[in-house]
């Protein structure tokens, strides 16, 4: 267990260094100059040079990357003329575009993304598992086939299509809901939930389709296992055989599937946020990439990498708790 955690931590560090290095590499390779975007139209050569210097873009890319790493570990100082601003570790730097600290930019938007994904996670797990269970127990009958149609539909529809359809139906034709606007949970829980219904549904349609399929397969597999036959042979009511013994076996693998799927979920959440105009991490990724806002992009890459690794580690630990045969190493 300890060995496992040490290894995970080691690989996390390597992963983060490689990921951010790639971001800097891409930044170096693309022809866009963020200084022009910052400086605006009508900037002359001299003004541009000043901006270049201020953003540190006059240094070689390797030095820029080094300063970035340095900032993360020990913090760094920014000088603009006479004043020196110290940015304490872990320092992700300042946005080229808005001059705001990247760390607070991310911290500000994290609750939005968490609200979206956590809520949707609950929804798609419940929906997916229920549909999958029904589908397995009604194998090859009409209900199973209808659910299969839903699954194929869900899998085949990108979030920007399903989200748009939901918007058209519920906000356009039926007018049951207003166009979603993000309301923090702490301010108005009911408003928070009401505004997130459509984004949640958008993510749920896709992810629950995957979960339905996995639960169905898992259930059918577990139901054919020997220990299920044992409990039937010992007269346990079918409800108990399925609810306690079969479901446990079928659901355990979903833990690791959730972890593996985490990256995909992040991408879909990003698309959903952009579609509904939710001020979350996803939206920030899109904006900062468009503006070639290197510190923000690098900071977000770091955050996403960290989140994926944490999710996977948590899943491994949870799996080892649920299934005692698993030994982490």
């Amino acid at each position, binding site marked *: *267990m*300890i*060995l*496992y955690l*040490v290894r995970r931590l080691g690989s996390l560090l390597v992963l983060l260094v490689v990921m951010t290095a790639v971001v800097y590499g891409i930044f170096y390779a693309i022809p866009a100059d963020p200084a022009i975007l910052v400086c605006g139209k009508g900037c002359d050569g001299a003004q541009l040079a000043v901006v270049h210097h201020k953003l540190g873009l006059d240094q070689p890319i390797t030095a820029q990357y080094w300063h970035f790493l340095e900032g993360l570990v020990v913090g760094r100082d920014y000088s603009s003329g006479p004043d020196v601003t110290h940015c304490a570790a872990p320092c992700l730097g300042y946005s080229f575009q808005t001059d705001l600290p990247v760390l607070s930019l991310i911290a500000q938007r994290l609750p939005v993304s968490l609200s979206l994904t956590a809520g949707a996670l609950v929804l798609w797990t419940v929906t997916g598992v229920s549909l999958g269970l029904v589908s397995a127990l009604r194998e090859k009958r009409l209900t199973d086939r209808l659910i299969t149609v839903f699954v194929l539909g869900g899998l085949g529809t990108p979030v920007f299509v399903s989200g748009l359809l939901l918007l058209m139906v519920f906000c356009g034709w039926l007018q049951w809901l207003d166009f979603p606007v993000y309301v923090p949970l702490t301010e108005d829980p009911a408003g928070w939930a009401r505004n997130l219904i459509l984004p949640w549904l958008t993510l749920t349609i896709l992810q629950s389709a995957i979960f339905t399929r996995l639960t169905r397969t898992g259930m059918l597999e577990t139901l054919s*296992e*020997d*220990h299920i*036959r*044992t*409990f*039937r*042979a*010992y*007269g*346990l*009511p079918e409800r*108990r055989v399925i609810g*306690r*013994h079969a479901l*446990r*076996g079928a659901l*355990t693998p979903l833990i690791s599937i959730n972890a593996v799927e985490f990256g995909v979920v992040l991408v879909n959440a990003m698309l959903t946020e952009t579609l509904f105009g939710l001020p979350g991490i996803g939206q920030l990724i899109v904006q900062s990439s468009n503006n070639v806002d290197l510190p923000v992009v690098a900071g977000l890459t770091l955050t996403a990498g960290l989140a994926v690794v944490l999710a996977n580690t948590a899943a491994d630990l949870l799996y080892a708790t*649920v*299934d*005692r*045969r698993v*030994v*982490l*190493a």
Partner: protein
Amino acid sequence: MTGNGADGNTVLSVRDLTVEFSSGGGVLRAVDGVSFDLAAGGALGVVGESGSGKSTTALALLGLHRHTDARVTGRILLGAEITDGTGGVDVNALDDEGVRRLRGRRIAMIFQDPLSALDPYYRIGDQIAEVYRTHSGAGRRAAWARAVEVLDRVGIPDAARRARARPHEFSGGMRQRALIAMALACEPEILVADEPTSALDVTVQAQILDLLDELRADTGMALLLVTHDLGVVSRSADEVLVMHRGRAVEQGPVREVLRAPARPYTRALLDAVPRLDAPRAARREPGDPLLTVTDLTREFRRPGRGLRRETTRAVDGVSLDVRRGETLGVVGESGSGKTTLVRMMVGLLAPTSGRISFEDRDVTGLPEKRLRSIRGDLQMVFQDPTSSLNPRRTVGDGIADPLRVRGVPAGEARQTARELMERVGLDPARHDRYPHEFSGGQRQRVGIARALSLRPKLLVCDEPVSALDVSTQAQILELLRDVQEDYGLTIVFVSHDLAVIRQVSDRVAVMRGGALVELADVDELYASPRHEYTRALLTAVPVLA
């Protein structure tokens, strides 16, 4: 063993039991008009080869074919009242709920593979308590106490603590004990045991059979013992029912049937069983050492607690030689290191330390490139003929592959493959068929043909007949004997079955816990085993009456 237990009332009376499966238009009659009675405290052995319908019969007794595509007809009367003329409960006529109430309470079942028969996620005590609560309505505390009590009864040491363990923390024998404990929980009148010891080592098998005998004597529970092993029936049953293709071909007291079988099928079945006391062919005079292993050791490492790693020594300082032209039997229980040892012999696994020399040449730790020159001389036949053949390649291609790898032109390789098929008793015209179209015995013939394709000097057979029925087993053993003559092969034959080892070997190596316990000429070893472990193994084997 326990004499005639049929003095009690009849607790189970089966009449005209027929089970049919409808498959793709046709109807397969798996069980065809079988009738038998079982008395309280009695033991009926149901024997037959795979596909004879013995397990299907056992499942029908608990109504376990319900909600499958099987059609069950006939009467299955259950209950002590049968002989009083009041009539018992007809399992086949009950509704689902009625059958559910019978299961585990009045008739319980234990299965072949005790590993998969228990839920891996829950504690063993909880699983037993759950069954007990279902039928008795007892509270959690009482049910747990009952679970501990029955675990203790079946000989689980420190039952109160071990009840908290999960199945993977139990050994095979202990898992089977736990399953028997689950069966005992509600004190059923009948225990149906479907191949209860087939997955266990002989010494463990002996313990489990002893336990079943004892429980039968103590509780008056009747036992229906389904098995392919006539030795087990001879040891633990009073009556025997021999099944063949769904029909009961012979039925009667064990001693009479096994000593003087009335039906030709029973006789053939008995003749096919390798016996510890049967006369055997003269021993071959072994030549000079072909392969010598010296102080061979192999360790496996796996993660342990914290930062430590646990090291298991699978083979521990084994020295022996395999002599030209002989068959060396390697026998031992599961985990004794026999497979690890022979895998190192053929270069499939590198030893941790020690030396292997083949034809007086040190081949230990040779790089793969240099090893390749002798790979053809060392070939292997595996236990499971299904998983050791590539399901996506025709058997002809499978046999020819080793030749093609060595640059033999495709046409020539195909021709050789066909000749080999003929040699091992397969129709060469079927060379373009796939493994699943062959039976288990035929697939093992394919495995042998493939091993022979490179004309090896040493053939290592790892449990080559363990997955086969006795009659098929006898044929494969004969084939191996024939090709050994023809090709002048030296054979290393690994098996857990002492009777098979005796039949095929010239010398026998007994392994235990990774170490070589005894190595002797076959006659000497079986007549006067020197080591106490060898003696224990030999006494544990159930012998035909």
